[in-house]
């Protein structure tokens, strides 16, 4: 309905090209038809505008909006075209990297709120954007990088041209001299400005006594530049300006790509402020008042209209609705909520108005907690990276000594070449590729996982998955979905009674109702009354029925039958109102997750040994184990017994991953090598799992495994390449076969290759 409204708007505005341009499916649109048109009028208030609107000299105003719901470049086109159709809008420019929209308009012709309404009609939500310290910092860093890259790139092109001219031969010395002077002039800004970040990092490294890769880089740049400049001034010897600029340019390019990967992770994570709505309605002194979301405190009563985001964690007081928790889980299927249910900040109310009592304000909400976890994971340096860092530090000291030794030995063989050979050794062996190999891979991987609804809370655990050989599953809520299905019916007229039950349950939103599917939609219930926590009463085909708990249907005889085939089921009764007999019994059971079989099979095909541990004492655990072909099944285990079971496996030398709901199994999860939890919403805050699957599905488990293997493979490839390259290049350089130019090319391409290889991990997982 919401999507259809948006599509109609798009078509009516003559913007049908959108469907031709887009290369990503759009997010579903929330129906805002019930929302009143004055919802955005708050933005016309001068006091509110003062926070984000800037006045221009010609009487126009301009402001930035942060847009959510953008999936690809076609959205950019659609939004810009639509806004430009509005009267008085002179500029609408949307940045695809940051999802930030700049609008310039005459407020007298189009009020600011119209922009929000127009965006809403297209299916995007917008909020005013203000400059933060972090965004300014990122913006400035990016500009710095681009300027430095530009200077190094332009300089590199010119110097290459000049150098080629001198190599071609038959050129008079006076012209060579002229070209060298030109090269020197172009190299100056590259060495003095573009390469500045390397010097700064090198000085920082030297101060802390840690030898990073910037030390040899800076040293090589200075050592190559000064003699070249001297050669130009004194008109003798060799110049290597082209090596200096090329080295700078490609190293900068590698650093820039690394920075962009970080930036992307930041944008996929988003800040808390982007995920919470700016205003909300609070019950104050007997009326609803629009207040800033940051003012909310625990216990406040707030009203959330359909189409609005929820500003704080809370409990529903009244109203029924559906919640879209895609920001948490990446899952667009709505969740129904009713009074008493908990809802999370940052999720979207899609259906009806909700009155909510605040339990945690925005800053303490589960959303805030999730962002903290994500930050932790992103800043974590895995052991292998730390090892590479320490290794690189020793390696740097080693190559500094080696370069000096090479120079000294060559002094006695051929004094004129000694310096340049020593320099080649210094350049070609720089361990940039080694140092970059892991951090870039981890950053790219976490970014990709996050987009697929997998939240690694520790980088280490995610990489450790590779070494896991045993996976232990919990049953309820892990292998089963915690939802109900009908397994047995005891009745004289099964078909009729099932239809009656389905017709009645159609009116209930309880999970049990989903167990009854209506085979014949023409049979409907009338005069329906839903009794919470008891059952439903209604008229079907002329008879008045009750369905629900035995006590609700039949007061006199609440004894339930015993199932012939299933244990651990819940019985639902059906009776005719006014009579004491139960006419039908339905056995309801929690069923397997649809993707459990595929996920379990995938893990088995990876050679993992699978175990099922459940606290449920019934035979159901064995049945599920048989169904999924899980070899080891143990029912009726307490949390402590589960823990001992894992410890016993570990004592045998196994590396164990535990998959559970993360809350009930906490002790067992804590002692597993890797703990993976299926968790949603509020559970997230109490969760100590290493990796959290934020969709209620098991399939991401296979993706996660595959991605862990892939990340390992890429890290290994990168490390192997770094070692191989250094191993091969070093002897040649020491033997004097490598000129500084070749050394600069080899070294730059080696680090670029590593970065580009790692960035491949950034692709969204399937």
């Amino acid at each position, binding site marked *: 309905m919401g999507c259809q409204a948006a599509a109609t708007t798009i078509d009516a505005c003559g913007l049908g090209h959108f469907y031709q341009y887009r290369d990503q499916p759009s997010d579903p649109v929330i129906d805002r038809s019930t929302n009143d048109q004055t919802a955005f009028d708050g933005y016309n208030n001068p006091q509110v505008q003062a926070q984000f609107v800037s006045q221009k000299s010609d009487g126009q105003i301009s402001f930035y909006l942060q847009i959510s719901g953008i999936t690809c470049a076609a959205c950019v086109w659609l939004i810009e075209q639509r806004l430009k159709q509005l009267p008085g809008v002179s500029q609408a420019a949307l940045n695809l990297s*940051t999802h930030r929209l700049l609008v310039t308009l005459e407020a007298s012709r189009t009020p600011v709120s119209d922009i929000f309404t127009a965006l809403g009609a297209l299916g995007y939500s917008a909020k005013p954007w203000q400059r933060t310290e972090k965004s300014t910092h990122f913006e400035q860093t990016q500009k710095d990088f681009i300027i430095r890259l530009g200077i190094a790139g*332009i300089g590199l092109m010119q110097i290459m041209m000049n150098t080629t001219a001198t190599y071609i031969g038959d050129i008079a010395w006076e012209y060579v001299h002229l070209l060298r002077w030109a090269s020197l002039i172009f190299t100056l800004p590259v060495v003095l400005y573009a390469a500045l970040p390397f010097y700064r990092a090198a000085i920082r490294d030297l101060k802390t006594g840690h030898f990073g890769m910037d030390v040899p880089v800076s040293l090589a740049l200075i050592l190559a530049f000064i003699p070249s400049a001297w050669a130009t001034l004194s008109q003798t010897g060799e110049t290597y300006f082209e090596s200096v600029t090329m080295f700078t340019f490609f190293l900068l390019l590698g650093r820039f790509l690394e920075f962009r990967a970080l930036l992307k992770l930041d944008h996929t994570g988003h800040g808390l402020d982007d995920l919470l709505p700016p205003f909300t309605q609070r019950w104050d002194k007997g009326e609803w008042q629009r207040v800033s979301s940051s003012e909310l405190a625990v216990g406040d009563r707030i009203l959330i209209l359909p189409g609005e985001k929820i500003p704080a964690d809370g409990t529903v007081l009244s109203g029924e609705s559906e919640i879209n928790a895609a920001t948490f889980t990446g899952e667009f299927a709505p969740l129904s909520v009713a009074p008493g249910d908990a809802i999370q900040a940052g999720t979207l109310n899609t259906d009806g108005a909700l009155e909510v009592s605040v339990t945690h304000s925005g800053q303490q909400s589960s959303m805030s907690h999730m962002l903290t976890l994500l930050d932790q994971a992103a800043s974590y340096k895995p052991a292998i990276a730390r090892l590479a860092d320490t290794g690189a530090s020793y390696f740097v000291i080693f190559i500094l000594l080696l370069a000096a030794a090479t120079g000294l030995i060559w002094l006695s063989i051929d004094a004129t070449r000694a310096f340049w050979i020593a320099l080649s050794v210094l350049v070609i062996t720089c361990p940039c590729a080694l140092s970059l190999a892991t951090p870039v891979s981890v950053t790219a991987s976490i970014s990709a996982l996050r987009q697929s609804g997998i939240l690694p809370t520790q980088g280490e655990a995610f990489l450790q998955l590779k070494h896991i050989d045993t996976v232990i599953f919990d049953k309820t809520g892990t292998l089963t979905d915690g939802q109900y299905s009908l397994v047995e019916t005891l009745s004289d007229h099964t078909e009729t009674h099932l239809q009656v039950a389905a017709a009645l349950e159609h009116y209930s939103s309880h999970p049990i109702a989903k167990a009854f599917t209506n085979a014949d939609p023409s049979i409907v219930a009338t005069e329906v009354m839903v009794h919470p926590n008891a059952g439903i009463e209604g008229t079907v085909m002329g008879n008045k029925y009750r369905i629900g708990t035995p006590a609700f249907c039949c007061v006199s005889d609440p004894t339930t039958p015993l199932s012939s085939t299933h244990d651990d089921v819940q019985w639902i009764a059906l009776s005719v109102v006014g009579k004491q007999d139960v006419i039908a019994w339905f056995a309801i059971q929690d069923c397997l997750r649809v993707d459990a079989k595929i996920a379990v099979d995938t893990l088995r095909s990876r050679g993992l040994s699978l175990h099922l541990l459940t606290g449920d004492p019934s035979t159901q655990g064995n049945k599920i184990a048989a169904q999924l072909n899980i070899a080891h099944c143990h029912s009726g285990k307490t949390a402590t017994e589960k823990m001992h079971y894992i410890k016993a496996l570990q004592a045998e030398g196994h590396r164990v991953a535990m998959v559970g709901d993360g809350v009930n199994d906490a002790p067992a999860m804590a002692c597993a090598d890797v703990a993976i939890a299926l968790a949603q919403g509020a559970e997230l805050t109490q969760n100590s799992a290493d990796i959290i699957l934020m969709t209620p599905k098991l399939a991401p488990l296979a993706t996660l495994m595959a991605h862990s293997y892939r990340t390992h493979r890429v890290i290994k490839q990168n490390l192997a390449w770094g070692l191989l390259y250094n191993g091969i290049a070093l002897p040649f350089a020491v033997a004097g076969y490598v000129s500084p130019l070749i050394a600069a090319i080899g070294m730059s391409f080696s680090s670029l290759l590593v970065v580009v290889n790692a960035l491949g991990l950034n692709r969204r997982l399937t």
Partner: protein
Amino acid sequence: MDILYLLIPLTILLITGAIVAFIWSVKNGQFDDLDSPAHRILFEDDADRMPPQKPDKREDAG
């Protein structure tokens, strides 16, 4: 080859100009969005400036 004495300094001047222009354009925000311009070039925003489509003659004949 004496022309080099004119051309080389000229290059230096031109390149200096190019670098200054480049720095100005970066500071002016022209490089802030590195993703959408690649797609933007494919969008048709001149539909209103196109001459109205002439009816297909073959269809008229048929």
